[in-house]
């Protein structure tokens, strides 16, 4: 068996698996369960998605609302996380003082902060952005920290032998060397940010994908629920892919970066 046929069989198997799964789902939904408030056929889900995207456009306001929250929180996390990570890497004192708080905040399930932040910021946009910010901050911060810590010694020695001052050392050596790590942190944050958006929109929101999913769950509107979940999955994969492209573009010397 040569490689080409093997590849073909492999793709065929994957396709067969997807088709078989969908058929099973359809049969289960239509002939076994037969209860629209419990499970609907994938056909109905696709139909609903089509309606919400192209006929009545119901999905768009939610999509936009969620995107704004996501981007604000995400951008703030990058703006705050990268410098803080650098400062922690360059100053052991700052690191030691910040570390216990950071470890605690990082290992707490994020949902626990949601009611507290809501209490502080109210149910407007502020609390939602803050929840996303907290969700995205730590992977970015920690990766920036590591990026700066593990800069190859030889690079630094090279800089010293060229008598670079510390600012030039930072700009020309330390910063570029830590870019791959920062990007890996950003990639990890995409998924966490989306989860945080969903969390944020469950509390006192009136629009957004998280609200859509939550409301559909409360009203037993299964097709809409599935569409919302699928939207989250698609956004997650999209965001991941975008960051991966940026990674290969920005750091062409790295073939494959580790993460997650």
């Amino acid at each position, binding site marked *: 068996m040569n490689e080409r046929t093997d590849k073909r069989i492999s793709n065929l198997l*994957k396709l067969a698996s997807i088709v078989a799964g969908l058929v099973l789902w359809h049969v289960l939904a239509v002939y076994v369960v037969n209860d629209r408030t419990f499970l609907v056929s994938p056909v109905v889900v696709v139909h609903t998605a089509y309606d919400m995207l192209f006929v009545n456009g119901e999905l768009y306001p939610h999509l936009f609302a969620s995107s704004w929250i996501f981007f604000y929180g995400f951008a703030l996390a990058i703006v705050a996380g990268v410098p803080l990570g650098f400062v922690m890497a360059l100053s052991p004192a700052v690191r030691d003082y910040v570390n*216990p708080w950071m470890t605690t905040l990082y*290992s707490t399930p994020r*949902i626990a902060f949601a009611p507290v932040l809501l209490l502080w910021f109210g149910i407007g946009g502020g609390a939602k952005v803050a929840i996303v910010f907290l969700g995205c901050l730590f992977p970015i911060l920690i990766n920036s920290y590591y990026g700066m810590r593990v800069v190859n010694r030889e690079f630094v020695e090279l800089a010293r032998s060229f008598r670079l001052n510390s600012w030039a050392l930072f700009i020309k050596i330390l910063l570029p060397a830590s870019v791959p790590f920062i990007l890996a942190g950003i990639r990890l944050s995409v998924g966490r940010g989306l989860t945080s958006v*969903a969390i944020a929109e469950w509390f006192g929101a009136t629009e957004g994908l998280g609200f859509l999913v939550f409301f559909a769950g409360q009203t037993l509107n299964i097709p809409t629920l599935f569409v*919302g979940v699928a939207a*989250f999955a698609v956004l997650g994969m999209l965001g991941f892919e975008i960051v991966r492209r940026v990674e290969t573009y920005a750091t062409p010397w790295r073939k494959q970066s580790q993460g*997650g």
Partner: protein
Amino acid sequence: MPAKNLPRKDLLRGAISIVGGLALWEFLAQLLLENDLLIPPPSSVVRSFWNLTVSGELNQHFAATLIEFAYGFTTACVIGVIIGYFMGMHKRFDEIMDPWIATLYSIPIITVVPLIIIWFGIGMVSKVIVVFKITAVAIILNTAAGIKHLDPVWLELAKSLRLGSWETTYKIRFPGALPYIITGMRLGVGRALLGVVVAELMAANAGLGYLLRDSSETWDSPKLFVTVFLLAAMGLVSFNLIKRFERRMAPWRQSAEWSTE
């Protein structure tokens, strides 16, 4: 952070940072804020914690969350390792499972929680399922990767020692994949904790998530903060336990000080 290089200094600074932060918080909350609701001072949080412990309310919720977590996690470990093993061993099985595992992996779990609650009710079962799903996917993916990336030299060794297939699995493949499996567990722990709290928050009558919701809806800030602290402690403890476990079971593998999720 290499704790061995600076045994005292960083610990001391950490302690100063925590004690100082708490004192500052207490001071500011007592002095500046008229309203206890926004940021209750640590002292009233401690008082609330004491009251909740004495009345037994806290124990009951804590136990509920812990049991849900334990059930989901252990079943996920067993089933995840078995499925992951077969995915690593048989390429065709891997290809059949792959699209579905990848889909499950890319869906943020908390968006599926409403669905799981509709299917399995508001009781304990739905939370166990949530924990199971999160942990199982992480373990399956990592176990399969571990089995696939096994050093071929070890398998040759097994062959030249004439190990049977069961012995090869038990003595070579499983220990070889163990670091990966533990990584999967570690990834699962944090997310599963989030998942179980979300599920309890949405619909439950016991558990820390329920307590979180209850206290925020009744504007009982000290109680809310008690719950937040407890969840933070749970996160810290479980993370450190698994890190220790990892170091013990797979000492040859360097582990990162902070997990990246």
